[in-house]
């Protein structure tokens, strides 16, 4: 092959090193007799930096020399490499979210009444940190309890244009004569596991 260019050799070395290399160390890649001058190295590094414009990697001078680095503009994507796998939300979180979605605005006490258990403080925090639930106001009652509602982000996430697009219970196959109030008119799309025939009317 033809002799690679000086800047390609420097790029290769910086790439392989994965750490900053000084001009001296870069000169050490060559036999003494043919080692480029420090000035020639610096010039080649300059050319390399120009070649890398707009690429996923850039040349940067740091304390101990030069190094190749992924520009910060790419942090959004690159950081995903180190993200932990998302854990699943607990049933408590999902139920609470569902109650808030369908019964908003609603106080913590009312949620607890429906679920029949005390609401752990981390549940509401999880939902608020996710940006799906917010405090919508306070009820003029003893203690002035906060009332919770879902947010626009919640609708966006679930691809809904408004709460009225939330599916009715019918969609999971509950014919629900005991809940006629939930009998919203929505075209049905059942999950295969639970059709109405699985749940004979009591």
């Amino acid at each position, binding site marked *: 092959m033809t002799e690679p260019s000086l800047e390609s050799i420097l790029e290769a070395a910086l790439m392989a090193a994965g750490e900053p290399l000084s001009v001296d160390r870069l000169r050490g890649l060559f036999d003494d007799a043919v080692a480029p001058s420090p000035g020639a190295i610096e010039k080649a590094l300059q050319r390399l930096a120009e070649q890398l414009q707009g690429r996923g990697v850039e040349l940067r001078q740091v304390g101990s020399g030069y190094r190749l680095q992924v520009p910060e503009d790419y942090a959004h994507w690159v950081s995903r490499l*180190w993200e932990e796998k998302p854990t699943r939300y607990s049933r408590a979180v*999902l139920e609470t979210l569902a109650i808030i*979605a369908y019964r908003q605005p609603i106080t913590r006490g009312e949620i607890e009444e429906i679920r029949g258990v005390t609401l752990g403080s981390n549940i509401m925090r999880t939902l608020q940190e996710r940006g799906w639930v917010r405090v919508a106001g306070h009820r003029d009652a003893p203690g002035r309890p906060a009332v919770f509602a879902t947010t626009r982000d919640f609708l966006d996430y679930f691809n809904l244009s*408004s709460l009225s697009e939330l599916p009715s219970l019918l969609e999971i196959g509950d014919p629900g004569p005991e809940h006629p109030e939930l009998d919203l008119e929505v075209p049905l799309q059942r999950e295969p596991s639970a059709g109405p025939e699985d749940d004979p009317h009591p």
Partner: protein
Amino acid sequence: MSDTADAGLLEPEVVATVRGQPMADWPRDLYIPPDALEVFLEAFEGPLDLLLYLIRRQNLDILDIPIAEITRQYMSYVELMKDLRLELAAEYLVMAAMLAEIKSRMLLPRPPASDEDDDPDPRAELVRRLREYEQFKEAGRSIDALPRVNRDVFTGQAAAPAMQPAQRQPDVALGELLAAFAEVLERAEMFTHHRIEQEALSVRERMSETLARLDGQRFVPLTEILQPHEGRPGVVVTFLAILELLKAALIELTQSRPYAPLYLRSAGVMGPSEAAQ
């Protein structure tokens, strides 16, 4: 081990004692001085390797091994090995026995009636093994010649950009939400007498929206909340939402005097008396 090759030019003297017999000569093909013998032996990976060497040394066709000659050479090597590296010798001795067996079988006259199929050439199995071994010997060399990480190729790495380690949020499907709600309702039905009231979700939504618009301490005129451009259904839904919010004590409705404009304000933010001004 290039020194062993150069050493082939040395003049041999009495080099070893084998079975009490002083040996003035190494076997014809073994151009190796005594002090290099151990190194030489380590160059072989076993009896098959040695056998291959002998065949190659004699420029013999692997498919047509002259068993008598090979056996003779092999035995002399094994004798040398026994003296030097006893622990190595066992596998070589097994091979020697096998060669001797083949040799003896070939010396025996073949019964005239015997068929070629019934009495295959006793060398066939040895040849098969030698060929197979040689293949992998070569393959080991090919693998050694493959480009290797940190010898021939180097993985590229650049410093990662400054990042906040983001926590990835779990995904939730709408169906999961629905299932969760169904389960809650079922439980509520079974264990409590909580009455799920009939309200269209559009009213619920409007309640939340109205609360959001009343966020803060400001009094908002009712007419600002009821938007005529939403049409009759919109105004009705908003009105129902306001009634629900009043009933739930989430907002206050005030009027400074009869027939004056009605004002709404979110409840519970501050005491009603101080907020009146």
